[in-house]
């Protein structure tokens, strides 16, 4: 996917001025946040499972080469193939080659973030193959020609009127007399339209939530069943997975699955968890005749042993997005690339480069909620800080930020001047107005989205000194 992460500040202004998007973002709380809290409260072992899940991934990452080799051996033993790909272009090439081998005209796709990462759909289209997204959210944004705005709820930014319009345009040639407006009717229309695509597809492409070294299985988790129809009906099943998805055993995967859905949607377990190994076996009455796993690096191997290694534990549950005040205000598209929210702000600079994505690590108040809710206990704020340090060191920080930090540093290293200045500002602002400021000179960008409380009385330093530290 083409990145617009460099335009983050402009993207944000656009998002904050979009009332429809703001309403959609407001729905996050009831759906994701409350449900996760409920699911967590129902399982007393939840936090202990998080500790174990973290340990499983840390262990696997420490032996990643060996677990991947074992995974490959097992996939082969079950009659499948593994294709190692260094970057997006290599992965696209492999998928196209496989589609040609299968004589594919139509390809159904389950939800795959790796597919988005490598920009697969436009590439297949340019090569005469029709990719059809089958996850309802992905299907909607494919019709709209947009990227996903959330890693587990790709169309979370759309309302049902917009979806009705898209369906009229694409299913009924714009005939508005056939426009549906109930959610059940829209889901049924999508079901019927996509059923035909499932049955005619030559190749099915899915992602993978987990890879099992022990058995060579790939695991997907869905609620709709689209991933299952995608992989069961066509002649060939292609799995797109990145290196870090592997875990040692089915038991290890099970521990992670116990916290995945609960963290993501607050479900006790997703509707369908499907473990797939190789092509159909002798005597099987259905299933694909060929099974291929495309194993993508695309910059991940460089994170091993770095201060960003912990992000490789991410299971893409989306909890950090749902709980992030920045994501909740600006939505996913502002981030400008596939991965959004706190996990995206950490991962994107590693995958597309700091030049392109240097704004993203600044999209954080460091409130720490992302780390609190992350099932894999990934220290997201700490890694955002590492990126900010690199941004600063490389001179990419905006001039205003560098100048501001320079001024602050001058005062911070001269306590007498700091006290004098803060005392003065507190007194002036406190005299100017009680309550809140809706606008302040030099801080228009800050006050546009919120009010600045006016200082009450003296500074902390002054009070501390007069109370002698009590």
């Amino acid at each position, binding site marked *: 996917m083409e990145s617009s992460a460099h335009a983050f500040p402009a993207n944000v202004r656009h998002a904050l001025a979009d009332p429809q998007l703001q309403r959609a973002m407001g729905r996050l709380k009831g759906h994701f946040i409350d449900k996760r809290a409920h699911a967590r409260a129902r399982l007393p072992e939840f936090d202990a499972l998080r500790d174990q899940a973290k340990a499983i991934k840390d262990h696997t990452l420490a032996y990643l080469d060996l677990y991947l080799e074992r995974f490959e051996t097992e996939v082969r033993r079950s009659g499948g193939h593994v294709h*190692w790909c260094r970057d997006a272009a290599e992965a696209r090439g492999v998928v196209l080659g496989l589609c040609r081998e299968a004589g594919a005209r139509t390809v159904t796709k389950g939800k795959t973030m790796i597919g988005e990462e490598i920009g697969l759909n436009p590439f297949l289209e340019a090569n005469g193959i029709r990719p059809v997204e089958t996850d309802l959210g992905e299907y909607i944004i494919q019709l709209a020609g947009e990227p996903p705005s959330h890693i587990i709820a790709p169309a979370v930014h759309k309302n049902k009127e917009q979806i009705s319009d898209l369906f009229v345009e694409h299913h009924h040639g714009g005939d508005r007399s056939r426009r549906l407006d109930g959610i059940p009717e829209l889901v049924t229309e999508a079901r019927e339209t996509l059923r035909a695509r499932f049955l005619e597809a030559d190749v099915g492409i899915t992602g993978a939530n987990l890879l099992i070294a022990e058995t060579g299985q790939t695991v997907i988790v869905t609620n709709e069943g689209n991933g299952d129809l995608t992989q069961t009906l066509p002649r060939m099943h292609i799995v797109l997975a990145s290196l870090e998805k592997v875990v040692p055993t089915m038991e290890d995967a099970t521990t992670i699955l116990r916290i995945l859905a609960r963290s993501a949607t607050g479900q*006790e377990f997703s509707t369908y968890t499907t473990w797939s190994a190789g092509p159909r076996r002798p005597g099987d009455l259905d299933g694909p005749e060929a099974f291929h796993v495309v194993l993508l690096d695309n910059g991940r191997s460089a994170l*091993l042993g770095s201060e960003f290694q912990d992000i490789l534990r991410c299971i893409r549950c989306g909890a950090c997005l749902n709980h992030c005040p920045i994501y909740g205000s600006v939505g996913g598209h502002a981030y400008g690339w596939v991965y959004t929210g706190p996990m995206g702000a950490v991962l994107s600079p590693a995958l597309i480069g700091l030049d392109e994505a240097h704004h993203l690590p600044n999209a954080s108040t460091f409130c720490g909620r992302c780390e609190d809710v992350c099932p894999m206990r990934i220290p997201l704020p700490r890694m955002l800080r590492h990126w900010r340090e690199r941004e600063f060191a490389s001179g990419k920080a905006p001039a205003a930020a560098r100048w501001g930090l320079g001024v602050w540093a001058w005062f911070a290293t001269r306590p007498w001047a700091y006290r004098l200045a803060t005392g003065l500002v507190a007194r002036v602002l406190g005299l100017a107005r009680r309550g809140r400021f809706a606008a302040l000179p030099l801080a228009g960008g800050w006050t546009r989205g919120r009010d600045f409380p006016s200082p009450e009385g003296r500074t902390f330093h002054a009070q501390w000194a007069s109370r002698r530290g009590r």
Partner: protein
Amino acid sequence: MSEPRTEILGKLRRALARTDSDAAAVDARIAAHTANLVPARGQVPEPERVAMFRAMAGEVGGTTEELAGPAEVPAAVARYLAGQNLPARAAMAPDPLLQGLPWTTTVLELRQGRTHGDDLVGITAAFAGVAETGTLVTLSGPTHPTTLNFLSETHVVVLPRRRLAGAYEEVWARLRALGADVPRTVNMITGPSRTADIEQTIQRGAHGPRRLHILIVDGLD
């Protein structure tokens, strides 16, 4: 071996400072496949286990029924279909467990085999049930086409009560006991198909079945 493979593995080995003795540790961990923490909820004994399974499956929109013996299954299926205003017709998995049931005592019209999407009802047996989340586990194979789990609007599942486990890990142990190779597909199914992709409103029957009915049967194996 391909160049990308060599290069990627080389990078990983260098970053991880791999030594020769590490492979043994990895093999040992896989061979042991030790269970991690199993929640207390997954360790409840019978009969609470059945109650938990039914409650959890019910929460996500599945329906359940307990039957005292195999002979009751055909009539229960016929009754359920009639209650849903569905025709007394179904595609059934060619599973000896199902074939052994007295179907001729009902008017059900059964066809055995996979489905291409034109059967309104699919009937299968389950390899296991898991009480902790009300989950069914099915295995693909000559006696269980995967299409029956997904293409029909209504999925009726026969779950022998003895196959009901507390936690997922018990099912993996039984799966390993079947032999060295896992089946092409292991399906874990928790409730009927659903989506929340339009305004985060939960809607049943996205692509898979709209209804999931589970018969928990005593004295069957």
